[in-house]
Structure formats: structure tokens, C-alpha cells
């Protein structure tokens, strides 16, 4: 069998249908090579002799196989400027749209959840300072939350290794970081102080609600790990945490359409994101 033909067309369709229903991850034909390689890795790891036997294992989630495949398919690693097309969309479209409907002078609020060790919220801060010409004209508040207090402590310390900075130019690293050892850099105090880190479980309304309303939420590669009910609850918490007309950005393979009808799909030039309607839908 040729390297690109691990799965026949029907098997690929069945796998994609299953992953979409189970996790909300949407893979098109264009992602076939990537998906097949991840499946091949998992088949080897599980000793599955055929796709049929691997798919049977996946369907019954034997030994947590669904999570293992998700991890393989989402590159479970965080680094600065990851999926930066969404940051381009943030400064090109989303913030402009929010400013159009917000009262003048009101703070723009951005939420990074889950924020892990801080790469995403600090990336947003740097991106705004570097790429948004209007950054001096508006107050922007960045809140970063995670359920794991250990990663929050690491995020607050703002110390990162070389891999986390691999997508930043030397110029940006020099501008926003100081050396913290031979292989580590610490983000500038001023930038560290500009991000507020909080503990929050996105499935717990009592923990999301006190954070108030946001203009843009980054919630990437999290909902795919939840079961259907938790995903619905999380989507409703995200909806409640958005100002009307506010946006939520999911991971590149995730689709809110599978999870909840509460949001509108917005297809911008650089990213597909989801919006809480300005007016609640009726009927």
C-alpha cells in the first residue's frame, strides 16, 4: 500500500465523521495526509494490524485512545505566535468590529482560556503592540485562565525555553525578553504585569461568570477533549462570557457548529471564528 493510501476513501470518511461527532474536530480531504500519518502512528503504538481493528479500539475508547489520537492530531505543544493567522484576524477584523459597536472609551477585553504556561496571552500582548496601529488609542485588558494552578504559576513567572520562542524573530525576542539563563528568556516585567492570570474551569459557570464579559475569547484545542455534555456547558459558558457581538476563536481543526447553534460563523480572510449574535435569536 502506498504511503498516502493507509485509509481508503470510505475509511477516511468514517474516521472523519466519527471524530467530528465525538470531538467536534473537522478534517477535510486537504488534511488527509496529516490525519493518516497520525492514525498510522497510533496503529503502530497500539499494535493494530488493520484500520478496522484500530477503529474498533477508537470507537470503544479503549485505554483512552480518543484522547491519544486527539493529542497526536493537535500537536499538544504551546509556543509563541502559534496559529498566528487568528492574531492577524484579531487586529484586522475582530477588534475593528468590536470598536464599531462598543461605547467610546470602553476597555477592550480579551480572554485566553486555557492559557497553559502563558505563551498565548503574552503572544496576544506582543502581537497587539507590534501589529495593531490603534494600540495606543485604546485600553486593552488581557485575562488568562487555566484550571491548572501549576501552569498558572509558570505563566506568571514568564520564563520560556528556546522551543517556545522558535517562531519569534530575534528582534522580538530582544525587544520583549531578557536572558534568564543560557537556554531561557524571561518576558519583560511590564508585559508580565499587563496580563492577569486567574484559575478557572471553563465547565463551571460559577468560575467563568466572575470574569465578566469579553470582546474576544481564545479557547483553542480544549473543547475537543470534553464529552458532549461538558462541551455544551462550556459553549454556553463561553456564550455568557462574550459581550453581544463578541468573538470566540477555536483551534484550527475545531468547529463550534458541531457543538452549539448559539454562535454565528464568521468567515474572515485569515480565520473562521464564531460570534455571539448582537441580538439574541428568537423562534
Amino acid at each position: 500500500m502506498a504511503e498516502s493510501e493507509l485509509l481508503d476513501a470510505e475509511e477516511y470518511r468514517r474516521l472523519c465523521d466519527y471524530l467530528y461527532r465525538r470531538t467536534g474536530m473537522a478534517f477535510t480531504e486537504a488534511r488527509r495526509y496529516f490525519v493518516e500519518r497520525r492514525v498510522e502512528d497510533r496503529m503502530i503504538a497500539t499494535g493494530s494490524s488493520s484500520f478496522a481493528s484500530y477503529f474498533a479500539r477508537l470507537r470503544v475508547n479503549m485505554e483512552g485512545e480518543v484522547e491519544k489520537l486527539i493529542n497526536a492530531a493537535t500537536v499538544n505543544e504551546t509556543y509563541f505566535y502559534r496559529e498566528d493567522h487568528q492574531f492577524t484576524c484579531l487586529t484586522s477584523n475582530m477588534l475593528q468590529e468590536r470598536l464599531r459597536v462598543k461605547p467610546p472609551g470602553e476597555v477592550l477585553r480579551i480572554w485566553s482560556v486555557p492559557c497553559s504556561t502563558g505563551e498565548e496571552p503574552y503572544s496576544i500582548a506582543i502581537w497587539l503592540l507590534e501589529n495593531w496601529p490603534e494600540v495606543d488609542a485604546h485600553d486593552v485588558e488581557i485575562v488568562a485562565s487555566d484550571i491548572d494552578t501549576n501552569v498558572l504559576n509558570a505563566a506568571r513567572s514568564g520564563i520560556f525555553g528556546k522551543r517556545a520562542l522558535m517562531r519569534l524573530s530575534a528582534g522580538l525576542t530582544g525587544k520583549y525578553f531578557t536572558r534568564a539563563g543560557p537556554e531561557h528568556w524571561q518576558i519583560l516585567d511590564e508585559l508580565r504585569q499587563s496580563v492577569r492570570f486567574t484559575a478557572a474551569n471553563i465547565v463551571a459557570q460559577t468560575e467563568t461568570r466572575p470574569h465578566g464579559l469579553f470582546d474576544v475569547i481564545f479557547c483553542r484545542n480544549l473543547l475537543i477533549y470534553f464529552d458532549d455534555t461538558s462541551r455544551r456547558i462550556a459553549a454556553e459558558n463561553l456564550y455568557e462570557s462574550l459581550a453581544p457581538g463578541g468573538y470566540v476563536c477555536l483551534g484550527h481543526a475545531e468547529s463550534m457548529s458541531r457543538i452549539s447553534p448559539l454562535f454565528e460563523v464568521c468567515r474572515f480572510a485569515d480565520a473562521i471564528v464564531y460570534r455571539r449574535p448582537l441580538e439574541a435569536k428568537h423562534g
Partner: protein
Amino acid sequence: MPLIRSKCDNAAAGVLREEPASLASASPDERWAAARAACDPACISSLGDALALELDARVRQAIFTALARIATPESAGVILPYMRVDDASTRTGALDALRAMPEAARPHLPGLLVDPDADVRILACDLVRDAGGADGPRWLCAMIETEPQANVCAAAVEVLGEIADAAAGPCLSRCAERFPDDPFLRFAIKVVADRVRAETPAPRG
């Protein structure tokens, strides 16, 4: 630097109101809040009453989620009638909610698979895919032995193609023989029969 950090959780936040909300309120926002707060089995009856009257799609979704969160056969039972409504978004919402509570929906599936309404039987086949568990293949095999409508059989066959193994082969063959004049169904059955023949039984773990 224009980036700011607020000093307290709720600064600049426009926090939602905290007064108790009612499922019977005139305000959709309050009904939404009430539905989201109703996560106890004691709320099933009031959620069911509210669902029957609710016209706001967003609040209906919150009620479906609340019932899915309660996840008992009783809360699933409240949703079943919405599998027969004309409004597609409500029907889809009901199905999604039932899929979200597979253990609770499972006891209802045998009844749904013999429902007098063929459209409900088709939707039930789809539910078996996610909520049927180990019994799913057996239920669908039994169904296609007697189901009079070819399109319902086609729905069952499609799901069997995903969840069944080689044991389903004889049932599939008999189903094809019952519909000699339906080339689409016979083709679909052939495709699925070829597939399940190669399928190994699902491992238990």
C-alpha cells in the same frame, strides 16, 4: 503601555445580574439563566413544562443542555417528543441532547426503533450509533429483519456499517432479499456487508 490589568475580577466587565431567575419569566435572558441553573432531577418537570412553551431558540438549547446534564432516563423522556416536531432546529437540538446522554437515552431506544412514525425510526437509528452501546448492532439487526420501509432499513444499514462486525452479515443478506426491487438499498447493503465481513469484533477494555 496601553495594555492594562484591572485590579478586581469584575472591573470593566459588565457582570451579569445575580437575582434568581424563573423559567416562566417574560425575559428570555432570565429564562436562559433559570434553565442553566436547573441541573437537579427535581427540575425535570419544570424544564419539561418550560420546553413545551419556549419560543426562544437560545433558551430551548439551554433547557436541552440542562436535561442532558441531569442525564436520567426521565430527563431523556422529556426530550423524546421533540424528535417529531416539524422545526428542524428543535429536532436537531433534541437529538444532540439525547446523544449527549447516551446512558440515559439507551433505555428508550428499543421503543423508538419500533415507533409508528418512520421519521422517528430513522432518527432512532442515528441515535443508536452514539447511544446504543454494545446492544446497538443487535437492535439494528433485529430491526432490519422486519422493518417494512426501505428508507428506514437504509438508515439502519448505514449505522450498522459503522458499529457492526461480521455477525451482522446474515441479517444484512436477508434484508437485501426482502427488497429485491430497491437497487439503492441492495447496493448499500452490499457495501456494508463487504465492510463488516472484514471487521474484527470491537475489543473490550
